[in-house]
């Protein structure tokens, strides 16, 4: 019951922050378009007045890729470099706005104006960035210990190739069950920074672990539920975006709108996690 209440309060808090979420969405969209738009221009330049792009109408025809010739290499390099660049920018953007969101969810009263939100984001940016990098390293190490190490051992002992997918299911299950712990610690640590104004990252992580210990099942359960729902949503969203191939102007525009709606929902669900963790930490 307490879990449900926590999730419900988290959802309400996230929903009430819709202006902030829309601001994050707009920022990610503009920056992604800045990377993606040259791709469109590049393709249009390559094809020029050719009608060959009609062959891409119902999906990408790999058979035509060879006809592009040398520009294809440039195109792939541009997409790769753009995606890499955007990943870095994205890390900064999401870390920045997480600072504002946690501030919003740790306030016991009212909301934040946009300028207050940006100010809080800026205040928390450096410690949040440090914490994000540390936690990403921790999660990487956790993944290596749970998945990578056993695979290496199996390969070394058997002298054979990498074990197949199904034989790794138990390891992935352990990994999936362990992940909410680290996510909660990361979120609770940031809650502590946002609430106290401290910039001490390792003390924040300590506070995160203490919060987990104090209310383990509520904390773990909250994150587990939110992560499961998020995962299902992400899978559905990707399935939609990958499989749909609109081929006319208005349909493509509607597709763009709908995929952006999915991004907004995804951002809302991420905010829901932040808010729920903050609620779990403050609940009695």
């Amino acid at each position: 019951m307490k879990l449900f209440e926590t999730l419900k309060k988290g959802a309400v808090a996230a929903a009430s922050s819709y202006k902030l979420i829309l601001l994050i969405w707009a920022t990610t969209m503009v920056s992604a378009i800045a990377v993606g738009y040259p791709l469109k221009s590049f393709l249009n330049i390559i094809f020029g007045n050719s009608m060959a792009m009609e062959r891409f109408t119902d999906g990408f025809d790999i058979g035509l890729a060879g006809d592009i010739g040398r520009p294809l290499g440039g195109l792939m390099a541009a997409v790769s470099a753009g995606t890499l660049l955007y990943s870095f920018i994205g890390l900064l953007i999401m870390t920045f706005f997480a600072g504002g969101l946690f501030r919003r969810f740790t306030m016991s009263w009212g909301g934040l104006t946009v300028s207050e939100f940006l100010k809080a984001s800026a205040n928390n940016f450096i410690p949040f960035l440090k914490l994000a990098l540390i936690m990403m390293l921790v999660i990487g190490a956790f993944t290596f210990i749970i998945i990578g190490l056993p695979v290496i051992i199996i390969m070394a002992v058997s002298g054979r190739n990498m074990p197949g997918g199904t034989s790794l299911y138990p390891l992935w299950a352990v990994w999936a069950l362990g992940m909410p712990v680290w996510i909660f610690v990361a979120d609770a640590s940031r809650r502590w920074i946002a609430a106290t104004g401290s910039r001490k990252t390792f003390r924040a992580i300590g506070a995160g672990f203490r919060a987990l210990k104090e209310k383990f099942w509520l904390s773990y359960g909250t994150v587990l539920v939110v992560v499961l729902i998020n995962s299902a949503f992400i899978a559905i969203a990707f399935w939609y975006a990958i499989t749909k191939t609109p081929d006319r102007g208005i349909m493509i525009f509607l597709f763009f709108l709908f995929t952006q709606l999915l991004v907004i929902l995804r951002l809302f669900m991420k905010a829901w996690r932040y808010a729920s963790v903050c609620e779990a930490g403050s609940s009695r």
Partner: protein
Amino acid sequence: MRKCILVLMLAVPFAMSGQIVVDAPLSDRLTGYDINAVLNPESHIVSGSMSAWWVNNSSQPVAEAMMHMYLNAFSSNKTSFSSGGRWTASGDEGWGWVKIRTMTDDEGNDLSGSMNYVSPDDGNEDDRTVLRLDLPEPVEPGDTLKLMITFDSRLPSPIVRTGYADDFFFVAQWFPKFGVYETAGMRQREADGWNCHQFHPHSEFYANHSVYNVSVTLPDEYVAGSGGKLIEEIDLGNNLKKVVWRAEDIVDFAWTAWPEYKVLTRKWKNVDITLLTSEKGLSKADAQFEAVMYALEYLGEKVGPYPWPHLTFVDPPIIGAGSGGMEYTTLFTSMGGGVVPSFLKISEMVTIHEFGHAYFMGIMASNEFEEPWLDEGINSYWEQRIVDHYYGNGYGLLRLSFLKISDTDQGRLGYIASPSRSVSTNDLPSWMYPHNTYSMMSYNKAATWLHTLEGIIGTATMDDVFREYYRRWSFRHPSGQDFIAVVNDVVRKEHGDSFGENMNWFFDQVLYGNGICDYRLSGITVKKIRSYSGVIDGDSVTYTSSDRKSDTLYLSRVSIERIGEVTLPLEILIGFDNGDEVMETWDGKGSYKDFEYTGTRQAVWAKIDPLDKLDLDVNRINNSWAEKPKHPASRRMMDKLVFYMQMLISIFTI
């Protein structure tokens, strides 16, 4: 050696062969092998005693014999096969070789002193893959040379086509095997002589259709299979068994053994199909059988009947992956079963391809060493037709809602994307292709120009070409010239001189030439000629002054250029602003061609080769031109990329 009268000698092989597998001999059966072999899994050695015979069907006495000693390709890193770091043994136990312990004729004369190794292709003295046997007495026309040989074959590791990995054995190219004695005129040869090439990285077969009686003794926990019909399996006690096979009219005999094989069988019409696979491969078994049956059906209908009542194929486990994707006529190996996702038809493609070799070098036993396009190119062409016919509605290899590729385009891609696509002609011996272009030339380019040939002469005529090729050359040894002669005869019969006196102009460019084909639609220009009112005749249409839109006359010019050296007849489809479409043709020989239209309509788009008949054209993007091209796909791609990036940063950031 024994000399007897011609009739008696010709009767010898027949008596040796008998009929067990097929109702009547399919081939001349100039060679045959009776082999008793023992597999020692610990030493990875197959010890054999063999009786091999060859009939001199020429009109001249023959004083020497040539034999392939394939496994010696793996004996050191200085052989023609492994030099240059292309293969090396996995430790001392990994080197492979075949050693003749004794060799006698059927009168017991020791011939071991008459053996010496030769390297007819490259003079490499470290290569011992061709054995020449100087006979004490020539084999007279019609006589039979019979050899009794005992040999040891140590299998190599890692596996490349043949070898072992742990307890997995794929035993191919493992015994001393006669080359082909070619008579004058055969494959345009000027004089009689042996055709026996060294073992190169990219050459595999050229052999007579033979009869094989093979028995293998091995530990009884092993499951074994081969290209022969299983005659019996005998329990020898002491945890040993003997497996006896017989094969008729095939060009090579290979076998495999592994304790963990799962054996499945199906029947298609009169053909018993056996699949040896791994536990993991079981999930793919139905798809693999289906692929074989598709190929049997398609090739049976379009080329000729599959003549044997059996075939065995292997989906090797990962440890034996090096044996995958090979053909031994009635035995072939696929790959990837149980690992490749079902939406990707790679395993099916390999299965169909390797099965197809039963026709192209199995039945039509061309010389793969000297003319690899004649089996790999033709077989790839048919594989692509089959895969794209049965799977994915034209996109046989991969057909998802967002991503697609046809098998035909996959092959074409290998050719057009190669920077070395013009480095040589397409008729070189397999070991002579420069700059690693063997696969691109033998498989991809050849298949691509065969599709182009189909586009020019039509699918029905192409099918008739192969039916005639099968009729003339099954169980014989055709050359490229023989294939071209079939094409010329069939095309002339069905199309007269529509394509010229013969089709040599085509083969001269694509097979014996190294040019590329590229036509470009350089643009459409439209000029207003004059305004008018009243009634005029233009473009066979009568316009009136009341038709306000039609009171202007235009000159539309569609300009085409030939960029490549290859000239092919073209179709050009031109679209006008009033919705009219006009199909034009051009012989493609000049460096450019303009099509002009005067009238009230304006040309707004045009496409060269609108039906994609000319796969050889290396750039299809420049084959069309539109005044206002529609690029919705690029917008959609950008939208998707933006979405993926936004989602990914929301996932991978805490």
